[in-house]
């Protein structure tokens, strides 16, 4: 079986400007939604208490809300989680609240409402922890960016490093944009997924760049856009198959992983889809705009040859 029966190199670079404009628009939209709607941060980042309970039969949410309001939590959010029999309650941290007793009091209130709730999960995060997690997340992101740029600059050329990281940060921003637009919950596992995607889609750029380097060395007389077209065309089958396989795994997580892994898998799905697009169709044009050419690329090797001669 062969899906990709490509006779000639596909002229991707002819449309480079179009791709870049599409990217720019999605990017600006993502930034816009991030700025206007913001991320719906999970309790891990904001601090607060989260109580998940399961009932034998689907309970009415309104009595639970009012009971919580009368017992001192008017700002409690009560919602179904996964199924109508599972209820999730979110309580923000407040100055005047005895934080260590929140989960017990909530359970007591729920038991008083009736329906025999079964405690599934409690998460309480104090205010100082949330801030730390947010700053640690930012630090992790910076470290990833720095590490990848340095590594790619060493292995390839600074132009490749810069374009790869711009292309993939653009993915990250778009994932965040999706989370902001749909107000999906942004939790620690989602953060992990975003960073994993960052490492993963840089792979994609690396594979293409590897080919670019090889083509520059092997085939003389090709213009830079031709080289890029050739590199992308000859790796496109691998790109699609690899991402398809990874997406199968992620799809399995979406289908079988339940609520906890839902947004994790969602972030990965968006990351994988945009990863293909950006690393191929954003990174490559960027390299071209940055002015990559064979001369600068194989310079060190040339010197070596001269020395031998």
């Amino acid at each position, binding site marked *: 079986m062969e899906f990709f029966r490509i006779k000639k190199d596909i002229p991707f670079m002819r449309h480079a400007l179009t791709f870049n404009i599409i990217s720019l628009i999605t990017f600006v939209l993502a930034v816009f939604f991030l700025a206007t709607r913001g991320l719906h941060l999970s309790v891990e980042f904001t601090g607060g208490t989260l109580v998940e309970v399961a009932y034998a039969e689907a309970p009415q949410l309104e009595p639970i809300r009012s009971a919580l309001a009368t017992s001192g939590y008017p700002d409690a959010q009560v919602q179904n989680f996964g199924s109508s029999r599972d209820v999730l309650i979110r309580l923000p941290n407040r100055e005047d609240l005895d934080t260590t007793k929140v989960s017990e009091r909530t359970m007591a209130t729920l038991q008083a409402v009736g329906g025999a709730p079964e405690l599934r999960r409690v998460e309480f995060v104090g205010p100082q922890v949330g801030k730390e997690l947010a700053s640690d997340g930012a630090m992790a992101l910076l470290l990833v960016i720095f*590490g990848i740029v340095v590594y790619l600059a060493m292995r390839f050329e600074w132009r490749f490093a810069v374009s790869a990281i711009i292309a993939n940060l653009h993915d990250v921003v778009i994932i965040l944009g999706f989370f902001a637009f749909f107000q999906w919950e942004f939790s*620690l*596992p989602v953060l992990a997924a975003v960073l994993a995607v960052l490492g993963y889609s840089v792979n994609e750029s690396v594979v293409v760049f590897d080919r670019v380097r090889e083509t520059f060395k092997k085939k003389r007389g090709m213009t830079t856009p031709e080289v890029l077209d050739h590199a992308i065309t000859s790796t496109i089958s691998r790109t699609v198959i690899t991402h398809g396989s990874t997406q199968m*795994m992620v799809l*399995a997580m979406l289908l079988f*992983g339940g609520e906890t892994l839902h947004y994790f898998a969602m972030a990965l799905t968006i990351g994988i889809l945009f990863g293909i697009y950006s690393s191929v169709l954003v990174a490559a044009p960027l390299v071209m705009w940055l002015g990559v050419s064979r001369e600068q690329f194989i310079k060190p090797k040339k010197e070596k040859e001269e020395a031998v001669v």
Partner: protein
Amino acid sequence: MNRYPLWKNILIGLVLFFGLIYTLPNFYGEVPAVQVSSGKATLKLDASLNGTIEQALRDAGIEHTGLFSDTNSVRVRVASTDVQLRAKDAIEKRLNPDPRDPSYVVALNLLSASPNWLTSINALPMYLGLDLRGGVHFLLQVDMPGAITKRLDATAADLRTLMRDKNVRHAGITREGNNVLLRFRDAEQREAARKAISASTADLQLTDRDDASDDLKLVATLGQNAQKNIRDFAIKQNITTLHNRINELGVAEPVIQQQGLDRIVVQLPGVQDVAKAKDILGRTATLEVRLVDETPGALEGALAGSVPLGTELYNERGGSPILVRNQVVLTGDRLTDAQPGFDGQTNEPAVHLTLDAAGSRIFRDVTRENVGKRMAILLIEKGKGEVVTAPVIRTEIGGGRVQISGRMTTQEASDVALLLRAGSLAAPMEIIEERTVGPSLGAENIAKGFHSTLWGFVAIAIFMSVYYMLFGLVSVIALAANLLLLVALLSLLQATLTLPGIAAMALTLGMAIDANVLINERIREELRNGVSPQAAIHAGYERAFDTILDSNITTLIAGIALLVFGSGPVRGFAVVHCLGILTSMFSAILISRMLVNLLYGRRRKLESVSIGQIWKPGN
């Protein structure tokens, strides 16, 4: 050209074999067990305990299916949960004859059902995190500024005493923020004070501050070292205290660890009663010093039922009853340290207590007035007192250094010292993070994670085999080997597996196939260019290697960043992710190459390979 030397094949075979062995325990599931561990920090488990437990079980007519012991615990495997409960009762009755003062913690636990030979080579199932097995997780913040303020308050009191003893006239000693201010009317007195303080302690740094000609100040601050010592001491003591308290809960495998400079993680697998757990963590125990009522006949009267007014009847540690006055001479607040040691003259084991300045003064006065009498040291917990020791006062004791000795073994001395130190918390603590996972959710999480991985794997396997034929099958075997090695590595390292960890496992498998796709596509490309099959295989693996290395390293960079900065769920993800990248490099390149070599490497005249359709533009 496509042959591995024998040693390489053997090496890969050995790695797979070890992988298989260490993965095995995960397949056996768990059986109920009873776990016995020491309930007192000073009680060490020894070999005779195994015999006692076996005897207890034999007497109760209970059969066990294996008894394992290590330095921290003895575990007995039993057939069912009914037997487990009966076995627990039988062992509990034998080991803790006095239920109010248990020496051992007897807890229910689950043990791997894997055969003993696996356990003996340290092949254990993966260590499941709380989100998979259910339980409670607390992160406690130790109030370090509080500990330092407490010490400074004590220091201010000490300095007052010191000034009086040295006859230095001062105009007031107060604590302001993190400093102790000493006011003086003239420079001479200040100089005298400085000398006196420097001679008595090295912990304080002294600076002058002149606010007016008749308002001279000496600012005393705790040095960096002293502050560090206070912090280290506070966190160590709090951990010790927590250990003692958690032992009471009867948790099989509690985790109590320092995290960062001022935090303590407490994990109690299997505990569902969060309220009780919090109660025990937050409880404060106090120490009291009281005098013993030695009026002739009073004790006998109290034992007969009429306790004299103003006294209480206690049992001294070791058994004999003792009558103690209600009036409290000193409380544990005045105790700054307790260490086991030896009596300077008799060389008997002893406990050395250090009191703060105010405590020293009280203690000196009380001992002066009560030479020859007995003094009781009580530990009050949950409103219940226990006389730890009741020594005879031999002489007036000044200077705040108290020694308790007499009829003690070294073991008892360190036991008492620990109890006195650990009885109360050195600094207040606050719960800043709590995570409770019910047992049903834990089991569900395992099932969800397992199914995700399984079906994802099956989908990839089918696709690869159809698309790349035999080479696809080789890739799938390599991927399965990757999973095997990853599970083996996680089992061997006993890294905590969480739900995000399982997700990382699935994701890593999904990404690992990339290497094989790269290789297979390269081989196809070479074949398309008309290269002979053997050369195509060789070139495919050679050329793809650089790309695989590069792409794995960039993924590893992201993984390491997560490992360094991640905590909680992110860390669980990162550990598996990083290990998975390493095992995938090994399996995707070496194992798949070995298989391909075994399949095709020996054939001289290889006409074609089974790698799916090679489509050429010319056709």
